[in-house]
């Protein structure tokens, strides 16, 4: 295959993977924007979302769309509970304590999932038959199209919520200044819960999409994509919603390129290499503005 065709094909594959990262990254960025917390457990919520989808399809015999919605609702609930139980008591604690708690929460979700769902992987039911659509010299699969479609749809919905609803306005207010928002009569706790719910729901959708894409889910599937999506959020500028999308897509493409020209064992190193470079040279991300620490 000529190199440019291969590159085009990798671009398509990369964008599909990238839109999944983007969906997960949105959750990181929203939560970070609002309470300055790296929700380490976010990747595990994505994993739970995949499992919820799995059981909704196999046990509840739901078709794809209701299954996705059920899973999103389930994950939203877990996200809200997580914040309520683990993070809220620590809202005024040192950052390190909160970070350790988040790591603990991540481990807890992972090992609970392993105990409840079993440690081995499960084949994800194929809710739609696999098809390959030829576009000239390259192809795109219907699953990739589905990933794109769902990701774009959810992002548009999120955009509308954040920019055109009262809830969105309140979220933006809380992220700018929690005390001031409180004084303006905004129920900060409820807004934080809503943020966790929305971020978790997006992650759950991503979990199902990936389950369908790779045909398999396991209790540890959240770890790497979670970290990568976090890198994507940092790359785009953490706390900035469009940044998460840009970062996610870039990450997906970069990973596919490296795997094509290098080796698949390098896959996971790409993300971290990008992270370290970004943090060193553009710590506020591609779309971020510079901030000055006040003495």
């Amino acid at each position: 295959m000529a190199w440019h065709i291969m590159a085009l094909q990798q671009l398509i594959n990369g964008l599909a993977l990238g839109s999944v990262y983007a969906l997960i990254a949105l959750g990181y960025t929203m939560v970070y924007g609002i309470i300055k917390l790296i929700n380490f457990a976010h990747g595990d919520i994505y994993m739970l979302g995949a499992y919820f989808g799995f059981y909704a399809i196999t046990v509840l015999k739901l078709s794809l769309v209701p299954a996705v919605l059920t899973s999103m609702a389930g994950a939203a609930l877990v996200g809200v509970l997580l914040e309520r139980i683990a993070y809220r008591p620590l809202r005024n604690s040192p950052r390190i304590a909160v970070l350790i708690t988040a790591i603990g929460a991540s481990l807890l979700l992972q090992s609970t999932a392993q105990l409840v769902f079993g440690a081995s992987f499960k084949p994800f039911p194929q809710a739609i038959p696999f098809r390959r659509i030829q576009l000239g010299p390259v192809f795109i699969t219907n699953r990739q199209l589905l990933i794109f479609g769902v990701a774009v749809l959810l992002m548009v919905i999120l955009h509308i919520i954040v920019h055109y609803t009262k809830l969105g306005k309140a979220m933006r207010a809380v992220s700018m200044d929690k005390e001031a928002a409180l004084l303006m009569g905004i129920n900060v706790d409820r807004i934080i819960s809503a943020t966790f719910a929305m971020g978790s729901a997006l992650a759950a959708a991503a979990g199902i999409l990936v389950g369908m894409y790779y045909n398999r889910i396991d209790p540890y599937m959240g770890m790497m994509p979670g970290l990568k999506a976090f890198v994507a959020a940092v790359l785009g500028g953490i706390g900035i919603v469009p940044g998460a999308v840009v970062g996610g897509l870039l990450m997906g493409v970069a990973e596919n390129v490296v795997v094509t020209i290098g080796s698949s064992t390098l896959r996971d190193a790409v993300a971290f290499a990008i992270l370290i470079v970004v943090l060193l040279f553009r710590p506020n991300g591609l779309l971020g503005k510079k901030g000055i620490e006040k003495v």
Partner: protein
Amino acid sequence: MNKLSSLIKGIILLLAYLVVQLLERQGVLLPYHVQILSLCCINVILVVSLNLINGFTGQFSIGHAGFLAIGAYASAYLTVVWQAPFLFAIICGGVLAGIAGLAVGLPALRLRGDYLAIATLGFGEIIRVIILNTDAVGGARGFSGIPKYTTFGLAYLMAIFTVVVIRNFVTSDYGRACLAVREDEIAAESLGVNSTYFKVLAFTIGAFFAGTAGALFSHYLQYMAPTPNQIGFVKSIDILIMLVLGGLGSITGSIVAAITLTIIPELLRGFAEYRMIIYPILLIIVMIYRPAGLLAGNELSLSGITQFVKGARAHGNHT
């Protein structure tokens, strides 16, 4: 007084070693038990060295297994391929890990808190991926055929050495400078403390000791696999859990936690399965109710213990 208590501590440590030797001779302790004790010592080194970086200098690092990995593989390469003496291999492993620590410490200057944490985690994973892709150390197959050089005696000695060095470090002007950086970097700088230098120093020393622990580890297991469990983030988080439960900034806390959390899973057979559920719950509860760790940053000391015992006795006499 000070000399006396050092002497007493030395005698206790020596006695502990002799007791283990005796019990092993008598067959009370099986080789398997002594193995666990060696692992305890290795973990003590890992946790105490991480404490220097995280607890005393406040640079939140969760990539400690990366330094362990460097020490483990480098030393194994030296003893297997070059037939180098073990002690030399340990030192080389430590020095290489220390150099890596220097390299991580440099970005640490620019990053704070959670960003630094993620960067160190990323750094650890990059090291793992590099090892995974290095055929000279077995690549993805793992590194096997490492001689069993790690004895309990050696691990015990190294652990004591590490603890003494790090304790002396943190209770000197160097350690106070690290504490100052942890507490308030701006104030520290305004008092003439070069915060950059001390962050890098803490990373380098911490990494050095983690590297020596790695050397002991690979010559204890005799086989290294480039998996997250052995040299990746899972291992890093294992070390972190011990550190946090023992208390950031408490050396004795680190020692107690490292030993307890190494022995418990081995003793309670059924525990292993629930370990990864219990630890995270403990972690969260400790952070919510006792964020300074179970010992709350305090050190256990001989005089403290005798005072406690005396106090308890006095209390008992009263009632």
